[in-house]
């Protein structure tokens, strides 16, 4: 028993491979780094990234995923908010950007960004989820990848902006208007149709994300926030709102973001993101290296309102226990659930299922496929199952 303790003496089972110091560690013996005007994550957390899946010939076309398996709580740091771009991130000069409201309005109007910043604002914590999130679930073999690279086209931020109803009132809505075609000011100038009743209900012209102005990749200087509805409607770099009697039938509401059913017909205007939950800890890529007490932790959300309940099963769905929901539980917002669990080294299958306040329940995969077939691509929200072997290895399974 000397002056230096190695792992064998007081290192823990799996992680304490390094020798622990009795003397002051090097970083306590010299001044640390100075202050910074804007911080970034620890150098030791460089592996925590958005994972990029883009088109080699079109590097601005694709997605990058939020690493949900590395995160805790409900806020997604803006640097890790998922991205979906059709043609890259535009570098928009906010002084030159304008929002145009026209079509079935009494007064077609333009607004500069500094104008909109003077309007009354609201904030809400709210998730945005791509309609294509979790689509690997439709595959016939369960994908083996970290939670974030499977379900991480969903992120949650505090958004602040101007209620869309305020600027629409100023323009004066004509009676025949039933839809709003929103258009983005990026190189793809993406357009999509949003029902007017939703626009007037709870949509925001979002200017701030997690306290600061929007990140470029999340729509700077202005984006549409459509709480609880699929990501593609939350038009980034918002440039134009066209009030119309009918939807425009844009490429992204016909060719894409529609779900082909086994009948050959396709669901269109499938806006609401249905309840979903996933256990993030433990999950694929983690490994249980000891027996004993664990905290199962995960995320649940629903586009219909608040999460009412999350149940967790440790026996592949035979029995379920209600998890604790971390306060605050907010509508259309990530909700963190947690439940203690004792692992004695047995084979187990962990599952979670979400219930929302509107009465919707996250389905088993077989149920979802019975309803939708396997070629709908969008709106996959089935229960996720993690199998854990006696060795503590975790894989994704279909049950």
């Amino acid at each position: 028993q000397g002056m230096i303790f190695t792992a064998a003496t007081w290192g823990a089972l799996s992680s304490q491979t390094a020798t622990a110091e009795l003397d002051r560690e090097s970083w306590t013996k010299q001044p640390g780094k100075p202050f910074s005007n804007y911080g970034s994550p620890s150098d030791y957390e460089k592996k925590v990234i958005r994972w990029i899946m883009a088109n080699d010939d079109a590097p601005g076309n694709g997605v990058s995923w939020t690493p949900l398996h590395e995160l805790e709580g409900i806020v997604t740091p803006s640097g890790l908010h998922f991205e979906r771009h059709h043609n890259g991130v535009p570098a928009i000069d906010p002084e030159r950007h304008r929002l145009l409201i026209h079509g079935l309005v009494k007064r077609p109007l333009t607004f500069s960004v500094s104008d909109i910043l003077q309007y009354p604002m609201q904030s809400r914590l709210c998730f945005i989820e791509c309609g294509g999130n979790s689509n690997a679930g439709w595959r016939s073999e369960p994908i083996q990848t970290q939670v974030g690279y499977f379900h991480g086209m969903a992120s949650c931020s505090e958004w602040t902006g101007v209620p869309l109803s305020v600027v629409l009132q100023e323009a004066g809505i004509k009676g025949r208007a039933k839809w709003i075609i929103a258009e983005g000011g990026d190189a793809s100038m993406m357009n999509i149709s949003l029902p007017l009743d939703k626009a007037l209900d709870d949509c925001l012209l979002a200017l701030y994300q997690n306290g600061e102005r929007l990140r470029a990749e999340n729509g700077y200087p202005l984006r549409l926030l459509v709480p609880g509805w699929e990501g593609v409607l939350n038009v980034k770099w918002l440039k134009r709102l066209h009030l119309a009697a009918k939807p425009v039938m844009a490429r992204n509401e016909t060719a894409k973001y529609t779900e082909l059913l086994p009948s050959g017909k396709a669901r269109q205007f499938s806006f609401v993101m249905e309840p979903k939950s996933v256990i993030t800890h433990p999950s694929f890529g983690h490994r249980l290296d000891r027996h004993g007490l664990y905290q199962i932790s995960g995320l649940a959300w629903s586009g219909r309102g608040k999460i009412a309940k999350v149940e967790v099963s440790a026996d592949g769905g035979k029995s379920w226990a209600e998890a604790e929901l971390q306060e605050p539980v907010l509508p259309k917002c990530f909700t963190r659930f947690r439940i203690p669990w004792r692992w004695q080294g047995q084979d187990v299958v962990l599952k979670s299922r979400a219930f929302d306040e509107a009465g919707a329940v996250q389905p088993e995969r077989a149920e979802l496929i019975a309803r939708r077939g396997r070629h709908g691509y969008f709106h996959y929200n089935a229960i996720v199952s993690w199998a854990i072997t006696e060795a503590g290895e975790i894989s994704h399974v279909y049950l």
Partner: protein
Amino acid sequence: MVVADELIGPGLGLQAPPEMLKQWNRDVFPDGTGLPLGRGTVREGETVYRAHCIGCHGSEGRGGSAEELAGAEHSLIDDPPDKTIGTYWPYATTLFDFTRRSMPLSNPGSLTDDQVYAVTAYLLYLNRIIGPDDEMNAQLLPAVVMPNQDGFIDNYRRDD
């Protein structure tokens, strides 16, 4: 619907001038609303396609680094289904709307309206919807009946 007389905001919006409304409004609806003047034939479209599209979408729209735009070999109820413009898209106007605003991806907004009509015609031809000698313009395009026109169920009005 908002009916209040008194503004709930500070009222900073400025009247949009007519030129702006005309130039900025790029939306093309199924009934043809929004289509500009101009025309283009399938043959002219083939030239446009070879110059601006083939690099990503491949010869005859069979796909490349970007997705296929034609060439379905079977139907929507096969497993897997074969979704292309010809088998899946409900409206031909969508092709004009999307191409004009977003394509070619490397140089969006660079085509003239005639070129967009032409390449739209060419893609409809490749999908066996119109003939090799046809052309497209603001009258003909909305009149095209797409095979899958009735293929969609409005999920917003009837939530499942």
